[in-house]
C-alpha cells in the first residue's frame, strides 16, 4: 500500500520541492508506523511527570495549573514599569517578567557617561535598593512569582542582591520567594557585548555564586534561566539552541558538584529559556527532545536520585527575530502560531511578543494584545483538553528522535572542545554565530528563506503603527542618585564595597555581600566597578 501511494505521489507531485525543517532536517512527504518502529513507549516517551518526561514535566500538566502568562515589561524609571506590571496583572497576567535597561544589565549607573544615551531603554533603570522598592511598590512578591531578566551575571549579582535585600526588609523569608533570575554568562561574553566584559570564567563564577546561594538560602528561587532563546535569536538553529543551552546547564552542574553540593540540592532549580520559532513541528519536537536528553544526562551522568532533578522546566518567548517591521500586524499571526507550538510542547511559562517588537518596546496595546493571545489559546482552542496531544504522531515522534540525535552530537562536539566556557574563551561560539547570521541574511536576500512582507508580498505604502516613546528617565535617575549619595552612610558603603573586593579576591560566594551592599545603598555601578577591578575586563578580539 505504501509503495502504491509513493508511486502516485511521485506521478502527481508537480512542484517537486524537497522539504526541510528550519534546522535543515529532511522531512518526508508522509510518516507512517514504520517510521516509529524504534520508539519504545516506556523508554522514549513515558508518562507526564515521569522520566524521561517527553510528554511533560508534571503528571497533570495544564490540568493542575495552566502555564504562567508572563509578559515582559520594562522601560523608563521604576515607577513607570511598576504601572505596567500592575496593568498586566489586572488584565490577567499570572506572573511578572521584568527587563532592565542596558546600563543596569551591564552594571552602570544612569549617570555614567557611557550609559546616558541608553538610560531607560530596553528595560527599567535601576541604580539601588530604592529603585527596586519603587519597582515593586504595592506588589506582593510573596504571592506572585517574579522573573528578573538580569541577562549578565555582573548585573544579576547586584539586581538579585537588591531583590533579596528588599524581600528581607519586608520581613520575608528568602525561601518563601517564588521566582527566577536569568544570570547567563553567555549573555555577558558572547550573545551580547558592550565596552567591557568580564572574562568568561569570572562571569561563569559569578553566575554559579547565585546558584549556590539560592540552593542553600532561597530554595524556591530558580537562580539561573539559561537564555537559549537569545542563542537562537542570533540565527543559530533549533539544534544549536538546545545543544548550547544544555551544555551550559551541564557546566553548572559540574561546577556545583565541584563546590561540594549534592546534585539533588540544586539541580531541580536549573531552568531553561527557549524560543518558539517559525517551524511549528520542529519546535514542538525540540522541546520534547530537550526534556528527554536532560532527563537521561541527569540520571546517567550525574547520578541524580530524585526525579525532580531530571525534570527540564522551561519558559518560552516567541521568536522576536522572525518578526518584521514591515506590515507589523502580521506579527500577531506569527506569534500566535509560535505560542501554540510552545503550548503543544509543554511550556511552563510564556511571553508572546508584541506586534511592534521589530520597531520599539511594546506599547500598552501591543502588550495587551499579546496577553489576550495567551488567554485565547488557553480558553478558546481546547488544545489543553488532553495532555501532549501530539504524542504518538508518526511525524512528531520521528522528528523528536532525529532532533535528539543531532542535539547530542552537537553537545559532544562542545564537550570535545573542553566545554562551554572554553567554547566562548576561544571565540568558537562567536564565529559560529557570525557565520550563521551571515548565511541567514544571504538566504533571505536570495529569497531562499521567505519572509512575508519583506521579500514576498511586500507593500509600497507601509502604515506606521504607534511607536512607544521611552519616557524621560535620565533626569529623574540623576536627581535620585544625588539624593541617595547625600543621605546614605558613605562609610558603610565603602566597607561594603571593600568586603566585596576581598570576597571576590578570596573566591568567596559574593551573594551575601551584594545583599549587604544593597542594604547600605551601594549602587549597581559601584559594585560592578569593584568587580571589574578584581576580575579584569575581556574583549572578544576575534570578531
Amino acid at each position, binding site marked *: 500500500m505504501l509503495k502504491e501511494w509513493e508511486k502516485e505521489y511521485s506521478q502527481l507531485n508537480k512542484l517537486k520541492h524537497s522539504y526541510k525543517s528550519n534546522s535543515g532536517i529532511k522531512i518526508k512527504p508522509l510518516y507512517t508506523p514504520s517510521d516509529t518502529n524504534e520508539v519504545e513507549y516506556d523508554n522514549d516517551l513515558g508518562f507526564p511527570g515521569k522520566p524521561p518526561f517527553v510528554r511533560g514535566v508534571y503528571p497533570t500538566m495544564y490540568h493542575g495549573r495552566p502555564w504562567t502568562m508572563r509578559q515582559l515589561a520594562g522601560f523608563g524609571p521604576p515607577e513607570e514599569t511598576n504601572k505596567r506590571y500592575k496593568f498586566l496583572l489586572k488584565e490577567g497576567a499570572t506572573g511578572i517578567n521584568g527587563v532592565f535597561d542596558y546600563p543596569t544589565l*551591564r552594571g552602570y549607573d544612569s549617570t555614567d557617561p557611557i550609559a546616558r544615551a*541608553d538610560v531607560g531603554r530596553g528595560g527599567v533603570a535601576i541604580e539601588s535598593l530604592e529603585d527596586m522598592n519603587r519597582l515593586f511598590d504595592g506588589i506582593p512578591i510573596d504571592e506572585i512569582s517574579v522573573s528578573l531578566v538580569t541577562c549578565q551575571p555582573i548585573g544579576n549579582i547586584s539586581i538579585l542582591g537588591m531583590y533579596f535585600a528588599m524581600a528581607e526588609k519586608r520581613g520575608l523569608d528568602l525561601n518563601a520567594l517564588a521566582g527566577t533570575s536569568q544570570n547567563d554568562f553567555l549573555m555577558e561574553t558572547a550573545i551580547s*557585548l558592550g565596552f567591557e566584559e568580564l572574562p568568561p570564567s569570572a562571569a561563569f563564577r559569578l553566575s554559579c555564586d547565585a546558584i549556590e546561594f539560592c540552593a542553600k538560602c532561597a530554595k524556591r528561587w530558580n537562580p539561573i534561566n539559561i537564555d537559549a532563546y537569545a542563542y537562537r535569536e542570533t540565527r543559530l538553529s533549533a539544534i544549536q539552541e538546545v545543544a548550547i543551552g544544555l551544555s551550559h546547564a551541564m557546566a553548572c552542574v559540574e561546577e556545583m558538584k565541584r563546590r561540594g553540593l549534592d546534585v539533588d540540592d540544586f539541580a531541580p532549580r536549573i531552568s531553561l529559556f527557549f524560543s518558539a520559532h517559525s517551524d511549528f513541528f520542529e519546535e514542538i519536537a525540540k522541546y520534547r527532545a530537550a526534556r528527554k536528553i536532560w532527563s537521561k544526562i541527569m540520571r546517567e551522568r550525574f547520578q541524580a536520585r530524585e526525579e525532580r532533578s531530571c525534570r527540564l522546566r522551561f519558559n518560552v518567548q516567541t521568536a522576536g527575530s522572525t518578526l*518584521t517591521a514591515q506590515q507589523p500586524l502580521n506579527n500577531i499571526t506569527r506569534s500566535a502560531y509560535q505560542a501554540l507550538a510552545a503550548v503543544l510542547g509543554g511550556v511552563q511559562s510564556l511571553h508572546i511578543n508584541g506586534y511592534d517588537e*521589530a520597531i520599539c518596546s511594546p506599547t500598552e496595546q501591543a502588550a495587551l494584545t499579546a496577553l489576550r493571545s495567551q488567554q485565547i489559546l488557553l480558553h478558546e482552542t481546547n488544545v489543553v483538553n488532553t495532555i501532549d496531544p501530539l504524542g504518538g504522531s508518526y511525524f512528531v515522534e520521528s522528528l523528536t528522535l532525529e532532533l535528539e540525535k543531532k542535539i547530542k552530537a552537537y553537545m559532544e562536539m562542545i564537550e570535545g572542545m573542553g566545554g562551554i566556557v572554553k567554547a566562548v574563551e576561544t571565540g568558537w561560539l562567536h564565529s559560529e*554565530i557570525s557565520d550563521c547570521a551571515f548565511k541567514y541574511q544571504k538566504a533571505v536576500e536570495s529569497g531562499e528563506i521567505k519572509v512575508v512582507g519583506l521579500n514576498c508580498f511586500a507593500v509600497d505604502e507601509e502604515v506606521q503603527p504607534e511607536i512607544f516613546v521611552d519616557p524621560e528617565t535620565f533626569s529623574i535617575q540623576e536627581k535620585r542618585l544625588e539624593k541617595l549619595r547625600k543621605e546614605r552612610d558613605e562609610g558603610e558603603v565603602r566597607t561594603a564595597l571593600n568586603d566585596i573586593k576581598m570576597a571576590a579576591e578570596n573566591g568567596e560566594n559574593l551573594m551575601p555581600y551584594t545583599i549587604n551592599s544593597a542594604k547600605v545603598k551601594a549602587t549597581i555601578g559601584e559594585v560592578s566597578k569593584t568587580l571589574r577591578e578584581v576580575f579584569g575586563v575581556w574583549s572578544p578580539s576575534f*570578531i
Partner: protein
Amino acid sequence: MARKIRVLISRLGLDAHWIGSTVIAKTLSNAGMEVIYGGSMIPEEIARTAQQENVDVIGLSTLSGNHQALGPEVVKELESLGIKDDVLVLMGGTIPVRDVPVLKESGILEVFGTGTNTTEVVSFIESQFK
C-alpha cells in the same frame, strides 16, 4: 587601480547587539571595501578613529533606541576635528522611519532600518564614490 573604499563600522553606546554589524562588515569586505571593525565606541572615539584610519565612510549600528542621542554626536565630533566633509556617516539598525528626517538633518547621510537588503548598502556606498 582604484583605491579601496575605507569603512569604519562601530556600535553605538551600550547597545548590546553586535551580530548585525558583523554581517554588514563582512558584506562590505566581500564587496571589496577595506573594513575596520571598531566594536562599541563612544562618539569621540569614533571620530578620532575615523581620522586616524583615514576612512571614507562610518557605519553606525544601533538597535537600542539610542540613535537620536548618539548619531548626531558623531557628526559633531567629526566637525570638531575638521573632517565632517571628508567622511560619510551612515546608520543602520532598529530606527523607526519617522526618526529618519531628523537624523538626516543632523548630517547622517542615509539610514538603513530593519529589513534592509545589504546589497542596497553596498550599492549606495559605491554610488557615492563614482
